C-alpha cells in the first residue's frame, strides 16, 4: 500500500504542478475565446485532483498489497528488469553517437544475453542479421533517415543507407 501511496502522491504533484502552470498561462488576446489557453487545462487539473483524491481514499481503505519486482532488487527478475531498463536507456542515448546499425546490433546482443540467452553463436548471428534487415528495410527500402552517429561512423553509414 505504501508504494501505491507514493505513486499517488507523485501523480498528485504532477496534477498540482500542471494546474499551477495552467493558471499562469497568458490571458488571451481574443476576448471571445472565453476559455483561452488555460481554461481547458484548468478544468482537467481540477477534475484530476478530485478523482485522484477519491482513488487515494479507496487505496487507504482497501489496503491492497502491490508488489513491483522492478523496485525489488533482491529478486533476480527485479535486477534483470532494472538492467534492461538501463540497457534501453543506453541504447536510446547511443543512437546518435554510434549510429543505428551499430547500437542496434549491440543492444540486441547485450539485452538478449541479460535476459538469459546463452547460445552465443546463434545470438551473434541473430543480432547482426536483425540489425542488417532493419537497416535494409527501413533505411534503404523505405528511406527512413535512420540515425547515423558521429565522425567516421557517419561516413560509413552513407555507404549502407
Amino acid at each position, binding site marked *: 500500500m505504501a508504494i501505491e501511496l507514493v505513486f499517488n502522491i507523485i501523480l498528485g504533484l504532477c496534477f498540482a504542478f500542471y494546474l499551477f502552470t495552467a493558471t499562469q498561462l497568458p490571458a488571451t488576446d*481574443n476576448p471571445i475565446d472565453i476559455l483561452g489557453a488555460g481554461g481547458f487545462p484548468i478544468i482537467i487539473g481540477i477534475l484530476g485532483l478530485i478523482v485522484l483524491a477519491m482513488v487515494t481514499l479507496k487505496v487507504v481503505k482497501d489496503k491492497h498489497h502491490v508488489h513491483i519486482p522492478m523496485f525489488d532488487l533482491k529478486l533476480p527478475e527485479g535486477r534483470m528488469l532494472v538492467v534492461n531498463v538501463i540497457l534501453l536507456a543506453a541504447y536510446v542515448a547511443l543512437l546518435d553517437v554510434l549510429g543505428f546499425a551499430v547500437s542496434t546490433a549491440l543492444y540486441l546482443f547485450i539485452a538478449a544475453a541479460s535476459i538469459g540467452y546463452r547460445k552465443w553463436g546463434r545470438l551473434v548471428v541473430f543480432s547482426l542479421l536483425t540489425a542488417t534487415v532493419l537497416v535494409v528495410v527501413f533505411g534503404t527500402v523505405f528511406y527512413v533517415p535512420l540515425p547515423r552517429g558521429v565522425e567516421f561512423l557517419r*561516413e560509413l553509414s552513407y*555507404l549502407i543507407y
Partner: protein
Amino acid sequence: MKSKKIIAMAIVTAVMATLVGSASAQNYPRRPVEMVIPFGTGGASDIFARQYSEIASKYLGKPLVAVNKGGAGTIEGLLYAFGAPADGYTIMEITPSLLIVEAQNKSSVKFRKEFEPIMKVQSDVVLFGVAAKSPHKTIDDLITFAKANPKKLKIGGLSPGGLDDYIANGFARAAGIQWTYVPYKSGSELKAAVLGGELDVYQDKLISFMSLASGGDIKPLVVLHDKRLDVPELKDVPSSVEKKVNFTQGSWRGFVIKKDTPPPVKKIIIDAFQKAYDDPAYKEMEKKEMTNLIPGYMKADEFRKSWDTEFDAYATIFKDLGLVKQ
C-alpha cells in the same frame, strides 16, 4: 586469426581513405544528397520538394532523398539541417514559415545567419473568397460590412501565428478593418467549415482554391496581387492593389544550403537546380500546380535580399499581434 584482423583493418583504412576529401568539389556528389523538408508528409510543400528533387537529381547525378522533419513548426527541420555538416550533402526546402519562425524569435538557430540561398523557385498567390450562399457579393461589400461590424467576420487559416495568420491580419490592417482569425488543423477542416457556414471568409492558395471555386461552391472575391490573374474563371476577380488595399503577400518555395559550404560544391548544386528549373518537366509541373502565373523565380543574391524585407514585415505584424517571443 591475426591475418583476418589485419585484413579487416586494411579494409577499414581503405574505406576511410576514400572517404577523406569526400567534400572536395571534384567528385561531388559521391553519394545521395538529403533534401530536408521541414514539413510533414503529404502537404503542398512536401510534394513540391519531392517532385523538384526528382527533376534536379537528373542533373546532380545522384538521388536527392527526401527527409521529412516536420516537428515543432519547421524548427525541427531547421535544427536537423543546421546539425549536418556544411558539405553540400544536406539541402533544405524553405517557405515563408522559416522567416516567420525567426521573426517570432522562436528558435535558437537564426535561419538567416546560418543558411545561404540556392534559389527561389516559385511563388504562390493567395485568394480570398466566400461560400456561394454568402450575402457578401464583392470584396467592397465585405469590407463595408467589416467596417460596420468590427471583429464580427470570421476568417479561417491554418495554425496560429503562421503565414495564414499574417495574411489575414496584414490584409485587415491594410484595408482598415478588423476580423477574427480562427485557426484550423488541416485544409480539409477549413474548407468544410467555409462550406458548412461556420466561417465567413475563406483564404487559400490558388490551386486548392480552384478546386472549390471551379465547381461554384466558393465565390472568389479578391486576389492578393498587384494585377488580375490570367485564369479564365478568375478574370473578373479584382486584385487587392486595384481595390486600393496595398497587401500582396503569398507563399513561395525555395532551397537553401548551410553557410560555409565550399563554393565549388555550392556552384554545382546551383547549376543542377537551375537546370531543373529550365527542364520541361518542371514547366509541366508548374502549370499543373498553377504556380506559373506570377513570377517567383529568383537567383540566389536577389533571394537573399528578399528575406530581409519580408522578415521586417513579419516582425512588425507579429509584434502587433503579441506573438513575438521575448
